[in-house]
């Protein structure tokens, strides 16, 4: 095993975001919110509301900072998710909502505001899918390996590479016995746009584009036996976000 080398890694701002997510696992003591969470946070109604009455799933969404922000409420969890707005035309084959760091600050600010008024929670998570555009597949693979504790020379002819790991750490929030799972998944992705004619009898393809991809799922451990202290929820979320940023900057480190 070798240490990932900082010299071969670009700055944090080179990464773009495909999605940002905050998941709140509700406490069994939490009553399901009956009001609009979107309206509570933004002070105005959402653009869309989707409801599945039989299963009790409700989703609200609207535009947010060039992407589409949705909140999905289920009996056991609330998911806030910022994704690519499919209604906006784009010529780029790489689906991005913008620069990761800038968006993250805006997203985290909103989420910490919601956490100040959220119901009791059992777990909290920050998730993201991040992309780093590259010219070629081989350079993307080499770039990815600069974040991982492997010797790049051993992967010169490798294909279909996928690396996933959880590196748990103790929380620095001052809550005793609270562990944080630092789950990351690393891969190289090839993208292209396919344009179909209206009758689907013909289509055209764009040139291939390549990205390094990191999928982050930074979350409080289910082994923590109590509800998370309400007054510490914003602080915990900030810690999860910082741990995510650390992985994107430093790579897979213990």
């Amino acid at each position, binding site marked *: 095993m070798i240490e990932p080398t900082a010299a071969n890694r670009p700055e944090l701002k080179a990464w773009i975001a495909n*999605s940002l997510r905050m*998941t709140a*696992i509700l406490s*069994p*003591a939490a*009553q*399901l919110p009956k009001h609009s969470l979107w309206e509570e946070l933004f002070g105005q109604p959402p653009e869309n509301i989707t409801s599945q*009455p*039989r*299963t*009790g*799933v409700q989703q609200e969404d609207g535009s947010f900072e060039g992407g589409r922000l949705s909140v*999905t409420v*289920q*009996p*056991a*969890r609330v*998911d806030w998710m910022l994704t*690519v707005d*499919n209604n906006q035309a784009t010529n780029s*084959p790489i*689906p991005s909502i913008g620069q990761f760091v800038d968006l993250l600050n805006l997203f985290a600010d909103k989420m910490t505001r919601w956490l100040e008024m959220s119901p009791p929670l*059992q*777990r909290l*998570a920050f*998730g993201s*899918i991040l992309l780093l555009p590259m010219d070629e*597949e081989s350079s993307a693979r080499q770039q990815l390996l600069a974040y991982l504790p492997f010797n790049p020379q051993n992967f010169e002819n490798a*294909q*279909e*590479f*996928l690396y*996933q790991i*959880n590196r*748990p750490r103790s929380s620095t929030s001052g809550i005793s016995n609270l562990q944080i*799972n630092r*789950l990351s*998944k690393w*891969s*190289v*992705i*090839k*993208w*292209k*746009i*396919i*344009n*179909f004619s209206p009758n*689907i009898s013909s289509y055209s*393809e764009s040139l*291939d584009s390549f990205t390094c991809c990191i*999928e982050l*799922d930074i*979350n409080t*451990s*289910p082994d923590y*036996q*109590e509800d998370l202290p309400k007054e510490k929820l914003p602080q915990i979320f900030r810690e999860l976000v910082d741990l995510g940023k650390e992985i994107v900057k430093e790579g897979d480190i213990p």
Partner: protein
Amino acid sequence: MIHNMHKNCTAMTSLSKLDFRVNETWLPTTECELIKNQSPSIYQQVSSKTRDIRVEHKKALRPEGVESSTIKQDYSKELSEEIYSLFKASDEQNFEDGMETEFSKKLICLIKEYADEAIEIITGIIIYERVNAEVATEALRWLGNIDHAPSYRFRLWLLERSLSCSKARIRDGAILGLSSLNDPHAISYLKLAIEQEKCTELRKDMEQVLAQLESIS
């Protein structure tokens, strides 16, 4: 316009859009539906894979669960329909304490096969009180009796959550389920439920289970 993603990996990714695509077939009809809806979508392809997703059983196609992951897994409409129909079909059934029925057998099979995916659907049905309280109660009793580790946390969560359901019969089922599960984790939620319980008989039952759990903690 469709985003076509050739992902160089062998495991399924956790993106919900990808899960959707992976769980579906690659038949042109599905692509047509997406185009009709004019919604860009992401396609996953792994060139060296030999598994044919049109042939294998649907369950085998789900991404392998990572215990620490919080990514939402979309459950199938078919499974949701199957579980909902099972509860509805048992509306008129008379249940006896501890006696196996077609309902309980089928319920156990579904939980053992689909784990959290099944519990998530059952949670919606019980918490939103979409079915007869007797059937919900019977389901909660069995949720505490099943020997199935992968669904344990979510079953415990549902039993604890059901202590605050509006129907007394459902709360009764939750007490019985928690008694069987015998996990001290439920202590704080039982204490909360005892404070709020207006039915004397139920409150006594809760106190009895609380004493049982405190004796082992």
